[in-house]
Structure formats: structure tokens, C-alpha cells
């Protein structure tokens, strides 16, 4: 009688041990395969976050030699696992400036990209720059137009899921970047500013 009782207890302990083991293994498995969280990134349940790590071709827009229109400059960048990281890399490249002597940069190189927030359910990218994008800007209406749309056109051209872009300055929605263009709401790209049009 005593031995049967002891055997039953052992079976229960074994079952408990197995359950706990399965739970621990599962927890470890899910922890290892959990999607990486980006502190400054909001992403909808969307399209396939590209997981490719290989290099990627992008087009950046800079001012043409007359300072009238935007011209695309192709560049190859290091691949990134998430669309938010790709957007960041793209904007970092835009801030670094053009490699073409005939083109002009449209953002001061002192500018820092402070964050990227993606709301791809609504096709909107929020991009937050440090105050230098504004304080270092030459300030004319036409120059401001080119800076604003160099950012918007670059993102919308390279990331089809992005339909509109809102520029934030030092974490805030400002009235304008340099006193002329309304940036308190997300803006669509202006393809007609590209040299040669669409």
C-alpha cells in the first residue's frame, strides 16, 4: 500500500517536472525569437518587415546646381533588419550630404536625427530632427521648400508604404522649419520639384 502511494507521488513529481521543463524551454524559445523592440519606433502590423541584411540601393534628393529643383542621387547603404532602421539610415545619409559636386546639400550637417516614428497603417512617417535643421537653415521660402521636400520625397520614393511625412523639430510640432512652409501636419511628396518632373 505504502509503495503504491510512493510510486504515485513519484509519477506526479515527474509530470510536474516535465510541465515545468516544457514551460522553461518554451519561455526560452519565445524570448530568443521575440521581435526586437525599438524604443523610438511605432510600427503597425504590416507588411513584411524586411529581414534582409544585404546592401540596399536608395535615392536621396538634393538641390540642383541652380538651387531650384531636387535631383536624385543613388547610393548603396548597409541593409537593416527593420523598415524603421532603413528610414533612419536613409535620413542619416541625407544629412551627411551629397557626393556629387554639382548638387547642394539641403540640411545642415550639424543636424541630428533624433527619432523616427512610423505609423504605416496610415502611411505616415514622423521624423524628428534636432534644432539645427532650423537654426542653420538659410531661411528663404524657396530653400525651405527644397529642404522640406528633399526629406519627404526621399522617404516616399524609397519606402512605398510611406505616403506622407511630418517633420518634427526637437521633438515638437513646429509651425514651420524656417518661417514659410506649414509642417504642423503630414505632407505628401511633391514630385514636380524633381528635376525633369516625374
Amino acid at each position, binding site marked *: 500500500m505504502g509503495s503504491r502511494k510512493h510510486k504515485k507521488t513519484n509519477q506526479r513529481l515527474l509530470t510536474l517536472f516535465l510541465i515545468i521543463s516544457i514551460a522553461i524551454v518554451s519561455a526560452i524559445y519565445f524570448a530568443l525569437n521575440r521581435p526586437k523592440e525599438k524604443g523610438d519606433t511605432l510600427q503597425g502590423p504590416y507588411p513584411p518587415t524586411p529581414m534582409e541584411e544585404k546592401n540596399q540601393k536608395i535615392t536621396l534628393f538634393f538641390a540642383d546646381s541652380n538651387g531650384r529643383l531636387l535631383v536624385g542621387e543613388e547610393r548603396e547603404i548597409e541593409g537593416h533588419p527593420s523598415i524603421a532602421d532603413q528610414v533612419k539610415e536613409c535620413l542619416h545619409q541625407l544629412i551627411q550630404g551629397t557626393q556629387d559636386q554639382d548638387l547642394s546639400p539641403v540640411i545642415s550637417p550639424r543636424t541630428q536625427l533624433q527619432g523616427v516614428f512610423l505609423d504605416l497603417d496610415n502611411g505616415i512617417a514622423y521624423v524628428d530632427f534636432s534644432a539645427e535643421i532650423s537654426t542653420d537653415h538659410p531661411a*528663404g*521660402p524657396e530653400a525651405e521648400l527644397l529642404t522640406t521636400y528633399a526629406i519627404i520625397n526621399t522617404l516616399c520614393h524609397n519606402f512605398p508604404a510611406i505616403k506622407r511625412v511630418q517633420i518634427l523639430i526637437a521633438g515638437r510640432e513646429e509651425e514651420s522649419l524656417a*518661417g*514659410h512652409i*506649414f509642417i504642423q501636419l503630414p*505632407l*505628401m511628396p*511633391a514630385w514636380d520639384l524633381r528635376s525633369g518632373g516625374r
Partner: protein
Amino acid sequence: MQSLERKAQNHGNYSLALHFALYTFSLLLCFIAAFSAISAVNARDIPAPRKIFLDPGHGGKDLGVRGKGGLTEKVVTLEVAKYLRDILQQRLGIEVFLTRSGDYSLSLTERIALANNRKADLFISLHTGAAFNPRRQGFNMFYMNTAVADSEPLEQPPTDSLPSWLRGQEEFIPASQRLAQILMERLNKAFYLPTHAGRILGGPWAVLIGARMPSVLVEMGYLTNPIEEDKLRDKIYRQAIAEALSNAIEEYYRDEL
């Protein structure tokens, strides 16, 4: 007999005085009629209401563009606005208001709110340019257009997300484009530039976005170009710009007839 002669003489004097009075009265009537006719012609030339808001860009801590020689946009825009105000008031009898008459700053929405509250029938924001290329020169005109993209249509147009008070400019976009065209032509003509020099561009201009009247942002040359900075420093050059803008405004009003 003598009394008859005196009576006749008196009658003659009365008659002469009467004729003189009638002649003077007729002359007066002619003057009044002529004056009325001239006034009527003028009123037709520049139809009512004639209330313009001029907006000298920037101000106070906001210098706007600063040229290499130290000339600032806020100074140029205020000077030209004052010249233009004087010309419009004196020559055309138009009521003119400035969004700022001194060196202080105003937000962009405050500027438009002032014009909307006064129910102005034109709004002209004066600016100077800056370019990434220091050789860039000339004039540009900008009008409001939120639908700047020609990409595939969105389910929700960009302007739908604008609060209603910010959508005030939409119905005036064709008139604003026409005004921009006339301003451009007059400036090019005044400074002997080719007819099609300069740009007329639509965009989401913050200072025009809620204006309930035809509105244009005028870029009066580039302070980043040292040659244009020198010109803009010259009082006569600024007055010439104001003169050309005044002619354009007069032409715009005549076209409205």
C-alpha cells in the same frame, strides 16, 4: 421820366445780376457734374472693397535671411511694405494695413488672423530669398496649394486633415494664382527681366494657409546673392520694387472688373 429811366436802369441791373447768378450756378453745376464723373470713373477702376493687408515677413528676434554683408530680411520687408502702403494710399486711395509696423515678431497664424479679422480683400506677404546656390537671383511668387503631390490618389486627401479654419484659402486659390502671375509680370517688366523669369509655385505656405482672401507670398530677390544684397540695401531700388508691386495690384483690381 427820370423815374422811368431809373426804373429801367434798375431793371437792367437786376437782370444782369440774375444772369450772372444763373451763369455762376450753371458753372458750379458743371464742376459738380465733372467731379462726380471723375469719381465714378475712379471707383470703377478700383472697385470696392479696397482693403489690403501687407505682411512684412519676419521681425524681432526672427531676422529671416541674413546676407553676407549683414543686411537682414526683416529690415528689407518692412521698408518695402511702408513704401508700398504709401503709394497705394496716396495714388489709389486704397485702405492699407501692415501686419507689423515695427521690429517685432508675430506668429504666422497671427498675421493671417489679423487680415481675416479686418476682412481684407488682398493679402501680400513680403519676403526676400535665400538659395543654396549664392548666384541665384530674381523674383519668385508663391501661392497656397496643399495638394502638391501628383502621386497616386490617397483615400484621404491631405487637406481633409486640416481644421476648417485653415482651409479658408482653398476657394481663393485661382485668384491667388492670377495675382501671383500679375505681380511676377510687373516685377520682371520693371527690372527688364525676361517675361518668364522667376517662378510661380504652389505649396503649403504657412503664412497663406488660412487666408480668406486672394493671397501671395512675394520673394523680392536673394539676400544670399551679394549683388542682390547690395541692390536691396539701396532705398531707390526698394522704392522701385514697391512701385512695381503697386502697379500690379492696380492691374489686378482692373482685371476684376
